[in-house]
């Protein structure tokens, strides 16, 4: 019971670092709905503009430039979908389908990593704006060892070199590892 209440308090605090989505933005991708698989991890975070603005108030006093960076983000969606042997094919097909769709929509595939030893398959797509800023970014990861797929969609008006900083600040691992120059 105590653990449950502690868990509630922790996620309650986490909420204040989350925000919602706007489909009208060029960088927004409708990743669709995911459903939890029995016994597997499932995480979905949707951070939209009002909540991000709200969260930026937290850091405004101490780190105004970070607050401005968070305010430049319009939407963040992160999905971590665990799979087992019975849902592996369905999940990897879903990842491939998202990648094909992004290519068809003219997104640029910026990074492709296939590491057989680590069991990682990563693809990063970007949609650039007129002023060389990133309007949208999608990271798709299939990790066969961890048995999970990760989808990240970042929407905003972001400078490429700021992506890793956003990933670090919002604790989105696939983004924080992304070093764009």
């Amino acid at each position: 019971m105590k653990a449950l209440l502690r868990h509630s308090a922790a996620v309650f605090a986490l909420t204040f670092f989350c925000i919602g989505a706007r489909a009208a933005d060029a960088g927004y991708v409708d990743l669709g709905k995911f459903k939890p698989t029995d016994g597997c991890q499932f995480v979905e975070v949707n951070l939209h503009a009002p909540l991000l603005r709200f969260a930026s108030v937290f850091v405004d006093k101490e780190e105004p430039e970070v607050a401005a960076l968070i305010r430049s983000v319009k939407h963040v969606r992160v999905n971590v979908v665990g799979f087992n042997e019975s849902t592996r094919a369905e999940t990897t097909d879903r990842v491939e389908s998202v990648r094909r769709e992004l290519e068809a929509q003219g997104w640029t595939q910026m990074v492709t990593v296939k590491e057989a030893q680590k069991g990682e398959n990563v693809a990063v797509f970007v949609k650039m704006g007129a002023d060389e800023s990133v309007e949208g970014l999608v990271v798709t990861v299939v990790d066969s060892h961890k048995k999970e797929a990760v989808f990240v969609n970042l929407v905003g008006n972001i400078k490429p070199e700021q992506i890793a900083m956003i990933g670090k600040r919002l604790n989105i691992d696939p983004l924080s590892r992304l070093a764009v120059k």
Partner: protein
Amino acid sequence: MSTLSSSMPVQPKRIWRGILIAIGCSFAAVTIVTYNLVTLNFTATALRDELVSSSSLRTHTRIQGSIGPVVLSAVRASLHLIDSIPPEAVLALRSVQKASVGVYSLDHPATADDRTKMLTSVDRMMQRKHWTRAVAVSQHDTFVLIYVPNEMPSQSTGRVCLAVCDREHLVIMSGDLRMEPLVELGAQQHLLAKL
């Protein structure tokens, strides 16, 4: 003279009527306050009902209640009289403007099928109420859903409604929080550096 004598008995009647109305109003006020203290607010009630109706969960109430700004102010004021309360707890309590909490025990844990149904059904219901799901986590036996309003009421106040479900319990919570004390608490605890 006759007018004066005829009006004399009326005054006690009016006084008694006034007293009765005052007692009635006080009773109604106490009833409303008591009812609010032992029930959840509308959003939390809707969230709980949708979670239960969309799944095979059977719940039994353990604790349930709501507290508003008046009761919270009284609690905050009384905390100053107690020395052993940690200052962080006092600060955290200062951020809470309203809170509604329910803890329920479950007959059996939610299945994966239950979780999928709950996710879809609660999302639909909350969207109708202009709330967006910010977080969904399903890990081991714990299932967490956090909703926030589509529009924040102000830059300094945030609203949140959440549900946490594990093998044995379902916790529903809804509240209005002020930012300033949380920012102060975050700065004190160096939380920003951990972000």
